[in-house]
């Protein structure tokens, strides 16, 4: 029975991961390219140079292809909530419903209205109105993402709610706390600005591909200027918000941070691993070394997590044991996971008693039980764990994804900066004539690399918070519906086929449009 239950959980997680990751192949390009197209059209509006118009229309077509094929792929995730994750959907109450409803309204009314003006309105509305529509499409896409990310951030840091044991639902007490939690703010800027990087890498890479074929040089240079600027601003802000994300994670999800670093036993003045190979045999509580090989930067993790180079950063074993080292170097006992499991089970028992007393109408006893629930509610999820180690996520996957993301992020910062320098300095470009084609190839391969970097970020965020569907309150095995594993497997494979077909359609139509653009003379195009 236990194995079967784990199968359902694993298949449901796999299905959600599959659909979310396919969805995320489309979304960041929409977010990034939307801003780039809006900037290009602004350049056309200001200069009235027909070449900017041709460039704008070329990228707008690619934006349209990606938007059209990606649209509604996210709706599948909502289907899964209602069927596969029904306990979660009920328990989370309106916290998830409100942001998703706002997202739906914004996505439908704002994007569908203004995107039509973008594509159909060139000769029907004034240039100013058209430009406004293009910007509003880009802003609308980011606002849609905001509400999804607010909902996701709440799952990582549930705040602004009160649990109602009568309805078994969380009820929102402060929309502001939910929408503006530090987790939501850093997640929004980190995610949306990383999409700008992807949009920038896409534009630079596609332009480099066209330059390899020796066509439309001026169009490509115009495009690369805008793409590299957006990509550079994006990677700088993504780095800054990555730093604030680390502080937030250290505060609210310390186990995730420990997994990101493969840190088992923390210390004050904790170094950060710049490069490392984990010991695959290492388990929580044993005496093995955590790394087979590592290159560390002194004080790095203390600085990243707390902005204090002296600070203690707890590792996996410290968190399980409830061990903390204060500023004097003394070991301080905090609540261990074993204690949290105990308190979580008290909360569960109180919840069960509350249901019985409620049916019997015993109001006085209900008040007492309610107080018991409230005092233990923060630990509710731990009560479902069979052992403390269950609260440890997949360390290798989180660790390697995090380090891949950071390494590629560093590469992208250098790539965008070098691209900007070269595009503005023709003499420097001339000096690098022999390696030019190599540079173009590098730019093309930067596109898939940026996608992998973006995906790695989501793996860190989502795998790193396991086993929780809602941090500390609800593990996956409780959030899941009572379905058979076979049922979920069937829909998993249906989605795998449908989404793969959509991806093939997306890539093939995009490639066809890019090839068509490279064959036409965009610098002399008449419109």
């Amino acid at each position, binding site marked *: 029975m236990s194995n079967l239950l784990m199968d359902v959980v694993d298949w449901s997680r796999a299905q959600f991961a599959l659909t979310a990751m396919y969805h995320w192949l489309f979304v960041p390009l929409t977010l990034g390219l939307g801003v780039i197209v809006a900037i290009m059209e602004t350049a056309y509006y200001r200069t009235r140079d027909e070449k900017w118009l041709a460039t704008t229309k070329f990228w707008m*077509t690619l934006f*349209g*292809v990606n938007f*059209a*094929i990606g*649209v*509604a792929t996210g*709706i*599948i995730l909502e*289907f*899964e909530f*209602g*069927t*596969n994750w*029904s*306990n979660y959907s*009920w*328990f989370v109450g309106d916290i998830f419903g409100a942001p998703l409803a706002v997202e739906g309204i914004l996505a439908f009314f704002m994007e569908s209205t203004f995107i*039509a003006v973008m*594509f*159909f*309105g060139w000769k*029907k509305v004034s240039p100013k109105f058209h430009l406004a529509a293009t910007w509003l499409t880009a802003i609308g896409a980011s606002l849609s993402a905001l509400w999804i990310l607010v909902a996701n951030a709440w799952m990582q840091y549930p705040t602004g709610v009160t649990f109602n044991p*009568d*309805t*078994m*639902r969380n009820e929102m007490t402060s929309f502001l706390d939910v929408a503006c939690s530090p987790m939501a703010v850093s997640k929004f800027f980190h995610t949306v600005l990383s999409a700008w990087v992807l949009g920038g890498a896409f534009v630079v890479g596609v332009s480099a591909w066209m330059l390899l074929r020796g066509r439309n040089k001026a169009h490509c240079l115009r495009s690369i200027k805008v793409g590299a600027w957006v990509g550079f601003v994006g990677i700088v802000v993504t780095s800054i918000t990555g730093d604030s994300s680390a502080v937030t994670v250290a505060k609210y999800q310390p186990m995730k941070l420990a997994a990101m670093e493969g840190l088992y036993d923390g210390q004050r003045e904790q170094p950060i691993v710049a490069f490392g190979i984990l010991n695959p045999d290492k388990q*929580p*509580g044993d005496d093995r070394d955590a790394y087979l090989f590592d290159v560390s930067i002194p004080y790095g993790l203390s600085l990243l997590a707390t902005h204090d180079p002296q600070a203690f950063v707890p590792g996996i*074993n*410290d968190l*399980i*044991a409830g*061990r903390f080292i204060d500023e004097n170097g003394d070991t301080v006992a905090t609540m*261990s996971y*074993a204690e949290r*499991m*105990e308190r979580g*089970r008290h909360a*569960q*028992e109180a*919840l*069960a008693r509350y*249901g019985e007393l409620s049916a019997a109408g015993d109001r006085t006893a209900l008040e007492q039980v309610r107080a018991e629930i409230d005092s233990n509610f923060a630990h509710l999820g731990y*009560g479902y764990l069979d*052992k*403390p*180690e269950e609260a440890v996520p997949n360390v290798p996957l989180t660790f390697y994804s995090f380090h891949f993301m950071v390494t590629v992020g560093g590469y992208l910062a250098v790539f965008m900066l070098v691209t900007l320098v070269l595009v503005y300095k023709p003499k420097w470009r001339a000096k690098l004539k022999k390696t030019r084609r190599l540079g173009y190839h590098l730019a093309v391969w930067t596109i898939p690399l940026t996608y992998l970097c973006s995906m790695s970020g989501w793996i860190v965020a989502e795998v790193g918070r396991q086993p929780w569907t809602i941090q500390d309150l609800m593990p996956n095995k*409780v959030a899941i*519906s*009572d*379905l058979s594993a076979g049922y979920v497997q*069937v*829909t998993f494979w*249906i989605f795998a086929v*449908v989404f793969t077909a*959509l991806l093939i*359609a997306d890539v093939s*139509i995009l490639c066809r*449009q890019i090839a068509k653009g490279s064959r036409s003379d965009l610098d002399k195009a008449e419109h």
Partner: protein
Amino acid sequence: MGTDRRTKPGPVRRVWRFYRDGFASMTVGRTLWLIIGIKLVVFFVIIKWVFFPDFLSGQSDSDEGKAEYVRGRMTPREGMPQEYIINIKIRTAYE
């Protein structure tokens, strides 16, 4: 004034023509709309209708019934140990 009303189409008609002419002038867009149409049919008619019913609605028609169902899933049930024993060995392993 009267002449203007007869010759200038109303806002609804203008919006209709805007979309109609827009769709009619599309090239790659027709393929995309075909993909969107097929996708929406597959998502909403086949996948949602056949495979993704609202699970809790299948358990109870009322919100009270759904709440009790979820309470049952989230609280100790028959067959589960009534008293949970924290494994002291596990706890001490980390101390």
